[in-house]
């Protein structure tokens, strides 16, 4: 690497400058992330229910045993998987389509790109509220549109009945995630050398062949990293569902994050901690390929 030749390499004696420079950031991050993480582990081995302060104390794996016997835990885990698979899956599909469209030249492309990113900078609370109003069973605009199109006969209380609540919140998270996917994939698309397409044209490739043989292989790593990041964010997301249904009706929209958040709000901190440790470990499994990738790129 060229960098190494011109960089001020500390020769033998240790240069303290780089350590001093990272110290403030490191101290804050360690204090605010590592200490709480350790605390969470400790708390997960305790009965720590603030509504029953007399019973606070270590109980070994008690919480974890309870977690694995908790039917609601397994149900919430299942919801989390569906939430991530459908949420991130469709975010990718529509984000990819949007990226392909924005990769074409047309007038006002810059403005369209900027405007289409707005859902991404909108607070989760507001997203939840906006869509709750759209889905409203009495005055909601979605019901009105569907009635006018003649697709439904009666108004549907989308968020109030078990069968429609979960698909409805999934649509909302898809809506939120399309822009970020489009943004990342567009950057990837712009890095694909034009000669590849010219060569494919000469070989007489059609649109689908170009898509699957040239485009997708070229932006494979962007797809991979963006998807992993989204999986982690979506699995962790609380605010959207919480502000639409708070996990109801009858737990039908309760993902694991929501379950933990509800337990934490109910001050059952020990149990909530042990579930969040389980969630973290599960996400870590997902993140291992991502971490490996980072590791590889930091080899310098």
């Amino acid at each position: 690497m060229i960098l190494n030749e011109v960089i001020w390499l500390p020769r033998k004696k240790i240069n303290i400058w780089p350590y001093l420079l990272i110290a403030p950031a490191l101290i804050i991050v360690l204090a605010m992330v590592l200490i709480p993480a350790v605390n969470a582990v400790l708390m997960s081995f305790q009965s720590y229910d603030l509504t029953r302060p007399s019973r606070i104390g270590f109980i070994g794996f008690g919480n974890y045993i309870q977690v694995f016997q908790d039917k609601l835990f397994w149900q919430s885990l299942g919801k989390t998987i569906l939430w991530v698979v459908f949420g991130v899956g469709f975010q990718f599909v529509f984000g990819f389509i949007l990226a392909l469209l924005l990769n074409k030249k047309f007038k006002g492309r810059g403005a369209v790109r900027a405007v289409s990113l707005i859902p991404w900078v909108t607070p989760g609370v507001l997203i939840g509220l906006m869509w709750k109003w759209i889905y409203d069973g009495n005055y909601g605009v979605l019901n009105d549109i569907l009635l006018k199109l003649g697709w439904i006969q009666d108004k549907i209380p989308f968020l109030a009945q078990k069968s429609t609540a979960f698909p409805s919140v999934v649509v909302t998270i898809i809506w939120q995630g399309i822009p970020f996917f489009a943004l990342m994939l567009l950057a990837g698309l712009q890095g694909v050398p034009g000669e590849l397409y010219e060569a494919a044209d000469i070989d007489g490739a059609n649109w689908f062949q170009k898509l699957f043989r040239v485009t997708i292989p070229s932006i494979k790593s962007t797809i991979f990293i963006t998807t992993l990041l989204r999986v982690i964010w979506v699995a962790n997301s609380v605010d959207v569902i919480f502000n639409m249904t708070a996990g109801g009706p009858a737990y039908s929209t309760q993902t694991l994050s929501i379950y933990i958040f509800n337990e934490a709000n109910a001050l059952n901190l020990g149990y909530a901690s042990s579930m969040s440790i389980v969630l973290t470990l599960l996400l870590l499994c997902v993140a291992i390929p991502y971490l490996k990738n980072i590791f590889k790129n930091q080899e310098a």
Partner: protein
Amino acid sequence: MKIKSKKQLFIRIAVLYLPLAVLLLFLLFPFYWTFVTSVKPDKELYGSIVTYWPQNLTFESYRKLFFDFNFLQPMYNSFIVATITTLLSLVVSVLAAYSFSRFRFKGRKAFMILFLTNNMFPTVLLLIPLYAIMRNLGILYTPMSLVLSYTTFTIPFSVWLLNGYLNDLPISLEEAAMIDGASRVKAFTKIIFPIVIPCLIATGVYIFMTSWNEYTFAVMFTNESNRTIPVALKNLIGQLGVQWDLLTAGGIITIIPVCIMFFFAQKRLVEGLTAGAVKG
């Protein structure tokens, strides 16, 4: 591309403009609907016919929000929290990013990975112990508790972003200055700093936006006097059942500052965000 024939124009509409219009409609309609709701009088809002543009335009809900519900207070709180978070994160992040970008030292890789993997921790994992820590420190229900918790995700992210920007700057710039007798500090403040100001602004906008929008920590770490906008929005529901005109008006007020900042910074922010993923 020049459009030569009717057929070409037709194809272009079918494969570009039409799908683009459908996607944009899906992405932007909720905002339109939020705005329209906020300027409708109650009668139209809860009438039997849904109107797609108000017959009687009214800004009553905005007036109520500011005068009856003192919405300026949460706006002010959010502004304070977001500003302090931005300044604190930027200062410590730019130092760390400079170190990662310009020095090769023992443990560099381990430290970088520590920063990069930070956003892997679920918010809900940190939430509970941080609540206890803030309470013990006596800063629960103060802006400082939010500032400190927000740095858990803003610092790692900013370090990553700024490191990318700095790596793109040739080292020869500082070298030349240092050969001419400038100290390292001087080389940084006189040469590097002015060049990276736009990147600092873009990163700052991102930090400001995330702090402004954050809800999960805010709902647990604030009380009535220092609650931030997202919490205030949600609380409007608790106070008066659901009044959609007020809620949507509050929503519009919430996103306007964010959108303005975002539009100014978006080009460089997008460059910074995507550079990592594309190169990586």
